[in-house]
């Protein structure tokens, strides 16, 4: 089941590395925050899948909305001279860890449950 996403991840990585695309240095902030937002969305999606509350629309709109909001915040920060993208980094970072923790807990629960059931 998890083979397909991993395969696509590898395809994406090789696509990016082989096309040799580089973005100007001043836009690398936007891209980094977009990557962070994407990670957050992905982990949120995995967590929702595990909790069986996954909704495609929420997932897809969440991805694009988060990415664009983060970029907008970074843009605003640049215009105002405040490092506003740090706010986005903080928010996404915290959510990322929360999602990870919740996924881990679920996995542990499942393992323990299967073990106790076997006994």
């Amino acid at each position, binding site marked *: *089941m998890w083979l*397909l*996403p*991993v*395969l*696509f*991840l*590898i*395809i*994406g*990585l*090789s*696509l*990016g*590395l082989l096309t*040799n*695309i*580089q*973005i100007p*240095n001043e836009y*690398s902030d936007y*891209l*980094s925050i*977009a*990557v962070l937002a*994407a*990670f957050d*969305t*992905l982990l949120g*999606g*995995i967590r929702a*899948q595990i909790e069986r509350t*996954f909704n*495609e629309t929420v*997932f*897809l709109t969440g*991805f694009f909305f988060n990415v664009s909001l983060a970029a907008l915040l970074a843009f605003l920060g640049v215009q105002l001279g405040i490092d506003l993208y740090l706010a986005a980094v903080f928010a996404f970072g915290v959510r990322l860890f929360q999602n990870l923790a919740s996924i881990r807990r679920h996995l542990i629960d499942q393992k323990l449950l299967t073990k106790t059931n076997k006994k």
Partner: protein
Amino acid sequence: MKNKPLWMVSFICLLIGFMVAVQYQTTTAEPEVRDTRDEWEVREALIQQQEVQQDLLEKISAADETLTTYEAESSQQQLNTLRKSIDDLEARVGLTEVEGMGVELTISPIFLENVDIVQEYPVITPSLLMRLINDLNKFGAEEISIGGERLTNLSPIRDVNGSTYLNNRPLPSLPLNVQILTDQPERLKNYMEASTSSEMFMIENLDIQMEVKEQLKLPKYEDPLYLEIFEETGE
């Protein structure tokens, strides 16, 4: 389509992978170094490299020649060849006496007359001596001896408790003799007369007299050579 969520996650993974790769390439990319040399600079660099190549080829052919004579000769002759190369090397380093035409400098103190202040006896400081040696080398000196001390590439010039030491021995007091061997003594003399180092000596109340000599004999370097810190130059 049953596996729609899976495809969606896969699509997001594709995007993430792409973005991460682009970001990685952007951050690891080295700033582009542009070749801003114009045509003449490129030509000069080319000529320089050709000279280096020529020099290397000459060295190789000389080494090859030594090698072939070495291989072709009998053991006695081999020994002679070996002795000859050793002699050559010693002569190059400065371990042998050398003779030839050159220039003799005599550095003597100047005493000012009709001056009320008490004048100190002038001394040659290491920096002054180095300046003189640099100027001499610049104007084509081949071998130099200062006050009976042969100058080699390893000769140290130091200040020891206020007196100048050359080859770890103090310089004799003024007047001092500096002998220089060169192919063009007249030219060296003219250059030295117009050089800044003679002015510098003048400031320190030192006078340099120059004389072209047809026959000069330079002493050899006496001490053992310490070659512990030598390294290959990589050429």
